[in-house]
């Protein structure tokens, strides 16, 4: 699996209220949520972002609430991957569970700039910065989580186990 797109860069501690403000949480419809993706961090984000684009952020991305609406909004906005220096733990967990690709890489998150064009190979963990002609290597997921992702998310895994 590969992702390829233009980078939208954000700072540290981007929280779930910025990713999807609570005023929109009276629905759980992914497409409705996607319309407000990143709205309180950058009100024009959804006007500018194109399908396949990539979010790159600083430390503690996704801190705050446990709302799965946050990774759901990003996934439904057709962002192909989030790269950050570090992720807040519930956001990390939720992304794995719903199948939003995320990558933790301090080096990549620091070096990649707004507007860079990058390509990610999820199998090898290699991130190519086409604009800067550079490469970064990301931490791979632990095998336990790779298993969840390979089975298509947590619910698919549970379904398979319940059938046994």
């Amino acid at each position, binding site marked *: 699996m590969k992702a390829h797109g233009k980078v939208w860069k954000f700072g540290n501690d981007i929280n779930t209220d910025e990713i999807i403000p609570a005023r929109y949480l009276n629905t759980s419809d992914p497409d409705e949520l996607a319309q407000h993706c990143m709205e309180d961090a950058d009100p024009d984000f959804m006007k500018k972002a194109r399908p396949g684009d990539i979010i790159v952020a600083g430390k503690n991305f996704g801190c705050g609430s446990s709302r799965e609406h946050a990774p759901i909004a990003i996934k439904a906005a057709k962002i192909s991957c989030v790269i950050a220096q570090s992720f807040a733990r*519930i956001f990390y967990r939720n992304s794995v569970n719903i199948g939003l690709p995320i990558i933790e890489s301090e080096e990549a998150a620091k070096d990649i700039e707004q507007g860079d064009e990058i390509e990610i190979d999820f199998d090898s963990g290699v991130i190519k910065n086409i604009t800067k002609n550079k490469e970064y290597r990301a931490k791979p997921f632990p095998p336990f989580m790779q298993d969840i992702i390979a089975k298509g998310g947590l619910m698919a895994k549970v379904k398979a186990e319940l059938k046994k």
Partner: protein
Amino acid sequence: MGMTISEKILAAHAGKERVEPGELIEAKVDLVLGNDITAPIAIKEFEDLGVSKVFDNEKIALIPDHFTPNKDIKSAQQVKILREFAKKYNIVHFYDVGRVGVEHALLPELGLVRPGMCIIGADSHTCTYGAFGAFSTGVGSTDMAAAMATGKTWFKVPESIKFVVYGKLQPYVSAKDIILHIIGSIGVDGALYKSMEFTGDTIAELSMEGRMTMANMAIEAGAKNGIFAPDGKTVEYIKSRTGLPYTLYYSDDDARYVEVKEYDASKIEPTVAFPHLPENAKPAREAGIPIDQVVIGSCTNGRIEDLRVAAKILKGRKVHKDVRLLIIPATQEVYRKALEEGLIDIFIEAEAAVSAPTCGPCLGGHMGILAEGERCVATTNRNFVGRMGHPKSEVYLASPAVAAASAILGRIAHPDELR
């Protein structure tokens, strides 16, 4: 090598002798919680599984507290999903308007939270129950769905940081000030993925309410859980609420901590966290910021002890003419006690608005949303951009004492400025 309380509870629920930090385990859960925002997604996923029953209809709590009483058609639809699911699967702990309260204040009152339990909730402040010596953490809706079906979940065993708080608290300094001070010192990712264990003679002096306030905000430092060793106060509280069994766990003397942090509580001042992160902690006395609104309530500080503190300060005084003061008892029980003790009278006399239990403004849902440029002092736990309304509004986190004093003076204030 010994184990911490958190490690012992996780080991017991994973059916193992011991667990090591970093280890991935599958653990049984004793309680699974969801609210009107997170449970609808979990319910949809649960229904997609095609199983015929939940793992245990007495170990699931569905608490529609966020937009309650329903603020609009959409939120009414969300709660309807919970109500119908509760009927269909005979979920014992579903609480609707008139019975509902803010989840993390309500579940302890109901005796659903006991020492030694392993609890997950699709709400980040599920970490509150660590106050009782339980392992308790926030997860997402998918985790909730899976646990409702299987009674199990996966965890990475967290490393632990020990926070030793010692010394006598100054007047008007509370558990809220301690935790704001700690988050201010370590930052909003200062305990990322880790367990925060609170100990020391100041902690032992804290009431159960105070411990809940502190455990509640562990997530604001990025922690997986916050935990307190159970003691006489814990047992007394639990026995007054339920006859169900519990297990007391204690950290071994040679348990492993990645860090030990010490705080002299006598040096902690009434503290305010400035926008837009809980780590922006500053002494209330130095703030001097004019304000438009004050909110006293939430799962952090909406309990009876909090309302008593606020009432003591508000008694015989009036809210500043430029300020709106909203007081939201966290549960029906808190509301009734406040009525019986005459606190509600004091609030209304002071010209505050008192509402039914709800999360309401805490997450910018309803019942006190801020306009552009407005500033609010709140006893809640988050002050992120747009948290209580307009993206250009501001929230300052504080204790009930600071909030009440600020409401009277029309600016952020230290309560002793009123004397």
